[in-house]
């Protein structure tokens, strides 16, 4: 470390205002929460496949505990793993490094953001240990189940869950302000709008979506909290309220939220694909405009979650149309990525495998979404395991594959060591194959009519058939295999960190600015801030001998209309 004064442990790791350290704090907190969420899924999947057994490491699952496990698995994986890792961690680490500045614009607000986030995580974890356990009203927290302690049976867990969620949103609100302002105001010289790497655009657009959608949820959460604690009747029809109101407020946030976590993962994948296909990203502006369209449309699709909640069928028709419309820009993104790969000289290393598998798996999630978006089909599919499988085919690629793609790609920059590629591939195949074996059976079960949020299928004759149990056991065993393979990653992570040899500055020959900083970058990132001369994806340019053309290297910009190719005019250099 090159900075002048030596910082104490607390200054450096706990109360740091350095964007990279805050990013790592977010990442490790997110991973810790994911381990809790992963443990929960292990417990309730065991209960589903082998009802009534004493789950090793947990014990027998009661119905109340089952509800709490399912609820908090969903909450943790979306709010305390996908969001902090994909947006907060990668955003914090990458934004200043890729736009070429020394830190976020508001470093102290950034630190405050993490501290509030940590507090929210602690409140949530604490809620598992209060009498009657954590909240069990499903992660969507529909009233009256969530509003009345008599129904959800968790008088303490429910408000704590809600407070934790609200605190977490305050944390991301502060982070989002920082991200947007930093990208607008702190870019390096020469970094114009269309020279910003796609991953940053997508993280910032995700932040904008989050900022615009979170207000209604915070308003709804405060009203729900008042219903729980003060006895108001915002959501109680008996007292003049309306339970559907919560669903509208929740999903007005909830649906853009899907894109809030999707977009950063899509951006990570775009950058990785361009680097390892050694090709210019196909249609930079197409991606950008598709994402703008996605962002706008994501605000008018929310009621497709409520097709059977009693909304007006004419409104359901409208939301079917918008829901099918939003698949167009997302499909466009997929085609652009395929076009980027087409004709490239692809290196199949760990980050690239994750990136390609993201596309493949996410596509299954997207296509099955069409069935659910059609209001007619949704009447049958609603709240079945088809829905569960569908959104896991979107969220697992986003959160888990997106995270692994990003961490394996930027690991040398963040930690200054190289990850082992062979172990990485073992981990990759050991995750991807069981993942499909978990959720394809769930599609089948859902199509056969198996409803979700049922503690024990023994109680339902139609669902307690042997064929169904076979599929449930396949899913659960695959889950165990998938969890077991995560230890390969942990081993690889620790082993690589303890390696002696340091990673080179730019192991992938990538163009973007973060690879010009030391690995890991010191406090302040560069002794002198870089200057940008061209776009981030000038790979295999015909006028260059090497197949990459870094953004910071002085020289002409091939995207400039005045650019003269040396091959056309050999006189110019």
């Amino acid at each position, binding site marked *: 470390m090159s900075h002048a004064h030596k910082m104490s442990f607390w200054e450096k790791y706990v109360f740091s205002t350095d964007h990279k350290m805050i990013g790592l704090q977010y990442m490790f907190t997110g991973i810790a929460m994911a381990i809790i969420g992963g443990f929960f899924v292990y417990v309730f999947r065991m209960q589903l496949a082998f009802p009534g057994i004493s789950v090793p490491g947990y014990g027998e699952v009661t119905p109340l505990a089952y509800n709490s496990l399912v609820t908090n698995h969903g909450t943790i994986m979306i709010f305390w793993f996908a969001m902090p890792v994909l947006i907060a961690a990668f955003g914090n680490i990458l934004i200043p490094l890729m736009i070429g500045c020394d830190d976020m*614009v*508001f470093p102290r*607000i950034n630190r405050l953001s993490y501290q509030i986030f940590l507090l929210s995580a602690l409140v949530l974890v604490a809620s598992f240990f209060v009498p009657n356990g954590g909240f069990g009203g499903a992660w969507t927290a529909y009233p009256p189940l969530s509003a009345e302690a008599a129904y959800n049976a968790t008088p303490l867990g429910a408000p704590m869950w809600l407070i934790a969620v609200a605190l977490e949103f305050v944390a991301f*609100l502060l982070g*989002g*302000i*920082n991200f*947007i*302002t930093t990208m*607008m*105001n*702190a*870019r390096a*010289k*020469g*970094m*114009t*709008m269309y020279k910003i790497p796609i991953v940053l655009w997508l993280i910032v657009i995700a932040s904008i979506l989050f*900022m*615009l*959608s*979170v*207000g*209604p*949820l*915070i*308003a*709804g959460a*405060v*009203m729900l909290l*008042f219903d729980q604690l*003060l*006895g*108001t*009747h*915002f959501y109680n029809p008996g*007292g*003049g*309220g*309306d339970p559907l*109101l919560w669903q*509208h*407020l929740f999903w*007005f946030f909830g649906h853009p939220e899907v894109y809030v976590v999707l977009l950063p993962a899509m951006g990570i994948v775009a950058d990785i694909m361009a680097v390892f296909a050694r090709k210019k990203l196909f249609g930079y502006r197409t991606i950008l405009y598709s994402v703008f369209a996605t962002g706008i449309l994501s605000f008018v699709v929310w009621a497709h979650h409520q097709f059977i909640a009693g909304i007006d069928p004419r409104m359901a028709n409208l939301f079917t149309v918008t829901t099918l419309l939003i698949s167009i820009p997302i499909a466009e993104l997929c085609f652009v990525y395929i076009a980027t790969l087409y004709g490239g000289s692809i290196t199949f290393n760990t980050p690239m495998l994750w990136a390609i598998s993201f596309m493949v798996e996410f596509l299954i999630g997207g296509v099955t979404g069409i069935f659910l978006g059609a209001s007619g089909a949704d009447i049958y599919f609603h709240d079945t395991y088809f829905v569960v499988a569908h959104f896991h085919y979107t969220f697992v690629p986003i959160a888990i594959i997106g995270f692994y793609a990003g961490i394996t790609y930027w690991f040398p920059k963040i930690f200054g060591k190289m990850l082992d590629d062979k172990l990485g591939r073992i981990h990759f195949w050991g995750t991807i194959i069981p993942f499909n074996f978990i959720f394809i059976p769930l599609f089948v079960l859902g199509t056969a009519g198996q409803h979700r949020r049922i503690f024990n299928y023994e109680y339902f004759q139609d669902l307690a058939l042997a064929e169904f149990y076979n599929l449930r056991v396949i899913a659960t065993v695959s889950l165990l295999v998938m969890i077991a393979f995560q230890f390969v990653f942990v081993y690889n992570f620790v082993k690589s960190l303890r390696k002696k040899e340091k990673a080179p500055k730019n192991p992938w020959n990538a163009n973007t600015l973060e690879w010009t900083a030391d690995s890991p970058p010191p406090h302040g990132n560069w002794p002198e801030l870089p*200057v*940008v*001369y061209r776009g981030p994806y000038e790979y295999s340019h015909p006028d260059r001998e090497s197949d990459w053309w870094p953004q910071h290297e002085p020289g002409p910009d091939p995207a400039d209309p005045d650019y003269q190719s040396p091959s056309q005019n050999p006189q110019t250099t």
Partner: protein
Amino acid sequence: MTTSSEDPTGSETRRPLVPSSVLGMIIFVLTEMMFFGALISAFLIIKSGNIMWPPPDQPRLPISLTAVNTMFLVASGVCVYFSNKAFAARSDSWAKKQLGIAIALALVFVGIQSYEWVRMLGHGLTMRSSTYGSFFYMIIGCHALHVFAALTFLIRIYLKFETVALKPSSYWGVQVFWYFVVGVWPVLYYLVYLS
């Protein structure tokens, strides 16, 4: 939106179009607008679901007193505007005086509001008496919290006027927030009190 983006070898300093503190505050205010927008739309949905609104057994809101009170808040916003003009013209003492008046007017607003609340509670309009009461205290209470937060900022700026050099951008950031708090009030007054 840096001006230096035109010319990579241009001036050393970046000059953003909008200072960071102002931009950050504008983004925050947009979120706040969505927050109040949600509260208002929830209120309107509940209202449209009731045949009699306000519910016949609930006390009426003090329309005229609040109209006067609205004037105080708007006047406070205008004073901050003039304070900023004086500040830009580098007449700091005049700017400080204007800001002082603005703070005083805002305090009058808070005082009258508290007086109203005490009276309303006495008349039996509470958070639990009806959804009418719930929404009234919810929406107006959220606004009141914003007034308190903004007042804290304004007082901090006021105290900074003489001791330390006040950065114009941080004053502008606070102003953006205050204009939002002032500007949203007539909307709330119209929707909650008048309809």
